[in-house]
C-alpha cells in the first residue's frame, strides 16, 4: 500500500524556506518557519484549526506576503518583485478547498485560459493539453459543461486539471477534500495519488491520514504558527514525539 511513500526523492531542492515569519497586523501567524522540500517530495501538513497551515502554503505562491525570512522556489527568490512572483506562480499550481473554478467559463475554457494567456500557447495546442489532463482526471466528457453543472468531486478534479495545464513543477493543496461528501473524497484522493505516482512535488494540507500514510514521505505537524514536528509517516503516526502531536493525533484518529 505504501509503495508511493517509498518512492525515490531527488536531491534537487524545490522549495527552501528560511527563518520565515509572518504577521497579520500584530498577530504573529507564522513563527520561524524552516522548511526544505526536495524535488519529488510529497509532504502532508496537518495541525489544529488556526495553526497557520493555509497561511504557510499561501506564502509559497505569494498569495500572502511574508515579512521576515526568505522563500526560494526553484531557485527564484520570492520578493516584492512582480516578475519573480509571476514566475513562481506559473511554476506552482494550487488547489483550494472551495475549488474556485471560474463559473462564467466552460470547463475547457477554465483549463485553457492560463496556458493561452500566461504561457502564450496557441489555442489549439492548449485545448489538446486540456483534454489530456481532463482524461487524466477521468472527466473528458464534461469538457463543454459549466462548473455549476458538476458535482463537488468533479469540480475539484477540474481544479486539479486546471493547475496541471500550466505544467507546474510543484503542486499545493489546501484541504482539497474538506468541502466534499465522503464518496467524492475518494475520487479526488485517487487523482492526487496518481499525481504523486507521476513524481509531482506536492505539499498538501489535509486531515486525510490514510492519504498521508499512503502517499507522503514526510508529515509536518503545525501548531500556533510553528512547525512542531516532522517525520516519516510511519514514525509520525506510530511514535509521535511531542505531547501536542500526541494530543492532536489522539483527537483525529481517536473516533
Amino acid at each position, binding site marked *: 500500500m505504501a509503495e508511493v511513500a517509498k518512492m525515490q526523492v531527488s536531491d534537487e531542492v524545490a522549495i527552501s524556506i528560511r527563518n520565515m515569519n509572518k504577521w497579520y497586523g500584530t498577530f504573529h501567524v507564522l513563527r520561524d518557519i524552516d522548511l526544505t522540500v526536495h524535488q519529488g517530495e510529497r509532504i502532508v501538513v496537518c495541525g489544529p484549526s488556526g495553526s497557520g497551515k493555509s497561511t504557510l502554503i499561501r506564502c509559497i505562491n505569494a498569495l500572502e506576503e511574508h515579512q521576515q525570512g526568505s522563500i526560494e522556489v526553484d531557485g527564484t527568490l520570492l520578493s516584492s518583485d512582480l516578475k519573480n512572483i*509571476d514566475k513562481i506562480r506559473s511554476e506552482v*499550481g494550487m488547489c*483550494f478547498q*472551495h475549488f474556485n473554478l*471560474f463559473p*462564467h467559463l466552460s470547463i475547457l475554457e477554465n483549463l485553457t485560459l492560463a496556458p493561452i494567456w*500566461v504561457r502564450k500557447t496557441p489555442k489549439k495546442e492548449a485545448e489538446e493539453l486540456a483534454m489530456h489532463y481532463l482524461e487524466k482526471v477521468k472527466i473528458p466528457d464534461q469538457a463543454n459543461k459549466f462548473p*455549476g453543472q458538476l458535482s463537488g468531486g468533479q469540480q475539484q478534479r477540474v481544479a486539479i486539471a486546471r493547475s496541471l495545464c500550466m505544467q507546474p513543477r510543484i503542486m499545493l493543496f489546501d484541504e482539497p477534500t474538506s468541502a466534499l461528501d465522503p464518496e467524492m473524497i475518494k475520487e479526488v484522493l485517487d487523482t492526487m495519488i496518481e499525481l504523486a505516482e507521476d513524481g509531482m512535488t506536492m505539499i498538501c494540507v489535509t486531515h486525510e491520514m490514510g492519504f498521508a500514510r499512503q502517499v507522503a514521505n514526510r508529515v509536518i505537524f503545525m501548531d500556533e504558527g510553528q512547525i512542531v514536528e516532522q517525520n516519516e509517516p510511519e514514525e509520525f503516526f506510530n511514535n509521535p514525539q511531542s505531547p501536542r502531536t500526541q494530543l492532536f493525533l489522539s483527537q483525529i484518529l481517536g473516533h
Partner: protein
Amino acid sequence: MSDTSASAVAFVRTESVPASAPPSNAAGPVKWVKDNLFAGVGNSILTVLAILAIYMVLSKSMPWILNGVWDAPSLSACREILNGETGACFAVLSERWNQLLFGFKYPAELYWRPATAFVLLFVAAAPVLFFDLPRKLLIFTGLYPFLAFWLIWGGPIFYPLIALIGLIVAYKVFVAFEKNNFTMALGLGALSAIVIWYLSGFVGENSALLALSLEAVPSRDLGGFMLNMMLGVTCVSLSLPLGIALALGRQSSMPFIRYICVIFIEFIRGVPLITLLFVASVMLSYFFPPGSGVDLFIRVVIMITMFSSAYIAEVIRGGLAALPKGQYEAADSLGLDYPQAMRLIILPQALKISIPGIVNVAVGLFKDTTLVSVISMFDMIGMIRGPIVASTDWNGIYWELFGFAALLFFVVCYGISQYSQWLERRLATDHR
C-alpha cells in the same frame, strides 16, 4: 404475478388508455379565472376593484384617443372639427412631426442623414448587444461613430477620418505591445494617436480630402428626439468604460489613483445633474483655451458622461464586492497578471452581477437627456415647451405632445429593460 405474457392471460391491453380530458371546472380558462381572480373573498374584492379602476381609466381615455383628429393646421381648427366633442388633437404630431424628431433648425432637405445614422445605429449595436453574431460585424461598430458624426454634422470627411486613423494606429500599437506590458502598451498607443492627430494638422489645410464634404450643420441646429438619442447613445457608451475604470481605480492599491477616483465619484454624485449642465453651458468655456469654443454638445456630453459614470462605477463596485475572494486568488495562483485577471475573470463576472444596476443608470441617463432643455437646447421636451407650444397655432396643447414624448421614451426604456433581462438569462451559466 410474474407470468403476465399474452399467452397466459386472456386479455392484455398493449397501449395505455389516453387520459380523458379533465372536467371543465378543473382545467382551461374557467379554472384559471377561479384560481387566479376569485380564489377567495379578499382576492375577489381586489379583482372587482381592479376591473373598476381599469374601466374608469379606459372609459375616459379611449373616446379621447379614438376620436382624435389627425389632420388640422392649428389647435383652433382642430377644435372646430371636434365641434365640442371629446377628442385629442393629434394633428399637432403630424403637423410638427419633423420638428419633434429633428428640431426646428436642422435643414429639412438633410433629414435623410440623421435618419440613415439612426438606422445604421441598429446595425452597429447588434454585434455588441448580441454576441452570438459573427465578430466580424464589430468592424462596422468601430467605424460607426465616425460615420454617424460625419452624417449628422457634415463637413469634410477628413476630420472623422483622421480621428479614426489615429485610433486604429493607437489600437495596433497597443496590441503589439500588450503582451509585454499592459500599461506601457496603453501609453504608447495614446502617444501614437496624439502624434498622428498633431501631424494631420499640417497636411490637413490643403488636403484634397477636405473637398469630399457634406454640407455642415452646426451643433446648435440639432434638436428634437434626435438630440436625446444622440446624447443617450454617446453618453451610455462612454460612461460604461469610464465607470469600469473608476470602479477599478477605487479598488486600486495605489493611494494616489484611489483618492482621485473616490473624490471624483463622491463629488459628482453629490451634485445635481442640472448644476453640472449649467456649468457646461456657461462656465466650462473658462477651462478651455479662449477662442477654442468647445462645442456645447461636447460639453454636455462630458458632463452627462461624468455624472452617469460615477453612478455606474458604484454599481460595478457592488458587483466586484460580490465576487468571492477565491476568484481573485485562483486567477493569481494561475499566474495571470492584473489586467488579465480583471479582463478575463473578474470583470465578466462583476459586470454580469451589475447588469440590473447598470441598466437602471442607463435608463435614468436616457431620460435625463431631456434636462438639456433647461440650458436652451431644443431636445424633444425643449421643442415641445418652446417652439411648438409657444407658437400661435398650437398654444395651449399639452396632453397630446407630452403623451407622445412619454410614449417614445417609454418604448426605448422598455426596450433596454427587456434586452437586459434577455442578457441576464443568456449569461446565466452558473446554475446556482
